[in-house]
């Protein structure tokens, strides 16, 4: 008993700590684990070497398709050659600076928004201003910019706009639907449930397809609504239904006592939602919400079925050129890398947000 109380014995034995201890415990604890460890090492070394050879050492970074065919490694030259179509789709070549500037503006606004201290009305106005400038840059027709119809918008800016406007518009709609579903007013509740279940019950592809093919049939003759806009509305509706269900989960997790305390203090329904209930409910649902956002970002590629060139579809189309067709793998890896950068950013940022919002509350 006295031994245990003594400081020297209360440390674990040296063999169980440090690098050696970790290795012994996790990789070499018995002969079977040893064998597995060596097998895994072998696979990693052999596979890693093949990958490095292909992607880096034997790769062709600059040159023509003929240079690529001569080489044995990856052909990254395809990305340089087709960069305009991959990134901007059918947007006119000589106007490439415009979608590039729009994309840069979007990324800057996004990075600025990550600062918690800047959250507030000015930032919201900043986002609206950014979207307007992006729209002007893309569309043209003013300030001496040549007009470019939405038919020709494509690539990365299209993916970013569809998903970010989708998320920004779907979020409040989703909140209202979640509150509606819990409402005590039967009609509001029924409408919310019907919308959520209907939209969640069909694939996004069919929502987009209906938006592009069926919807115009119901419009009076002569009235047309921009195809891009229709796709955007479809995406917003779709995301709103999923967000609503995630938020509803959060609302259910807020203890009843919180609602009662807010009522007893005389707060109105909307004030207690805004100040007491939603801040707690939303913090709980950050992980599923970010999951929905990441899913939406990737699902925007489904707009290809109604003939829009999002990033993935643009990349796919860019290698229709017979000379470069052989290098589809490299092109898709490029597309995957761009998607990954944005999705990984969202994922990391959500973890940061969770930590930030939990600060000070932990017991």
């Amino acid at each position, binding site marked *: 008993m006295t031994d245990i109380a003594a400081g020297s014995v209360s440390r674990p034995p040296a063999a169980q700590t440090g690098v050696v201890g970790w290795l012994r415990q996790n990789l070499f604890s018995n002969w079977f684990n040893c064998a597995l460890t060596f097998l895994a090492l072998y696979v990693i070394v052999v596979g890693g070497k093949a990958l490095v050879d292909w992607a880096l050492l034997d790769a062709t970074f600059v040159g023509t398709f003929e240079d690529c065919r001569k080489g044995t490694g990856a052909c990254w030259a395809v990305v340089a050659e087709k960069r305009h179509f991959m990134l901007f789709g059918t947007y006119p070549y000589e106007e490439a600076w415009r979608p590039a500037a729009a994309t840069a503006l979007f990324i800057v606004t996004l990075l600025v928004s990550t600062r918690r201290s800047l959250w507030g009305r000015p930032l919201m106005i900043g986002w609206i201003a950014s979207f307007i400038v992006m729209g002007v840059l893309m569309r043209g027709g003013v300030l001496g910019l040549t007009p470019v119809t939405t038919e020709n918008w494509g690539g990365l800016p299209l993916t970013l706009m569809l998903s970010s406007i989708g998320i920004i518009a779907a979020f409040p709609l989703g909140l209202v639907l979640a509150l509606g579903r819990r409402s005590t007013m039967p009609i509001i509740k029924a409408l919310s449930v019907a919308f959520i279940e209907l939209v969640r019950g069909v694939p996004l592809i069919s929502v987009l397809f209906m938006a592009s093919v069926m919807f115009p049939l119901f419009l009076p003759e002569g009235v047309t609504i921009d195809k891009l806009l229709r796709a955007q509305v479809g995406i917003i509706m779709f995301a709103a239904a999923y967000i609503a269900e995630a938020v509803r989960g959060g609302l259910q997790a807020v203890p009843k006592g919180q609602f*009662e*305390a807010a*009522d*007893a*203090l*005389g707060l109105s329904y909307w004030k207690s939602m805004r100040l007491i209930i939603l801040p707690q409910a939303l913090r709980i649902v950050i992980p599923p919400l970010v999951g929905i956002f990441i899913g939406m970002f990737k699902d925007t590629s489904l707009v290809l079925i109604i003939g829009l060139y999002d990033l993935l579809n643009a990349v796919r189309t860019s290698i229709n050129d017979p000379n470069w067709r052989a290098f589809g793998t490299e092109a898709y890896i490029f597309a995957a890398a761009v998607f990954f950068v944005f999705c990984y950013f969202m994922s990391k940022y959500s973890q940061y947000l969770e930590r930030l919002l939990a600060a*000070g*509350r932990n017991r």
Partner: protein
Amino acid sequence: MVDQPFIQLNRVNKWYGEFHVLRDISLSVAKGERIVICGPSGSGKSTMIRCINRLEEHQQGQIFVEGIELTNDVKNVDAIRREVGMVFQSFNLFPHLTVLENLTLAPIWVKQMPKAEAEDIAMTYLKRVQIPEQAHKYPGQLSGGQQQRVAIARSLCMNPKVMLFDEPTSALDPEMIKEVLDVMVELAESGMTMLVVTHEMGFARTVADRVIFMDRGEIVEEDTPEEFFTHPKSDRTKLFLSQILGH
């Protein structure tokens, strides 16, 4: 009494489905009166006091607070909730806000009070419940007794004319009960009208003007603490008292 009663319940009835939870409850409370309500668990004590600020709806009878009748009219409900503060067994502090923000939220958003003024008032009440130094902590960082004192201060910030307490000390560790009761005794001495559901009989003896005993949805007995504890009339009261006093 010349004054009209501050709170009046006239033959109030309430059912949960088929279950008759409040039976013909009549009660009147004068301004400045301190009433302790006790009775076995499930007898409807919480339901009764929660009807007074409309956390629960009664189905028959009438409830008046300061002459305003509780009806489905949202205006009346709002008006009454401004006069009535409530303290819960489980504190129900807002965990995402600091202690100070918990206290200033309702004055700012319900009474449109300027923030600086609301904070001054909040600090006054935090001093009164002896924890001004915790103002910038979150509820989760406080002990149960401290949390309940914050909850009392939060209600007081709305300057209520009556305070309802629903078993304010039953979720607390024994060593923290006294610090909360002390605050409540001090509040009673300041002349606050109070309805307190509690089994703290010491508190009832020192503070209460009247003790009400409820059982199975009815008010069985109502008397001064002196009479209630020394000469209980009904058998149900005697049984209850023997259970909580005798060990």
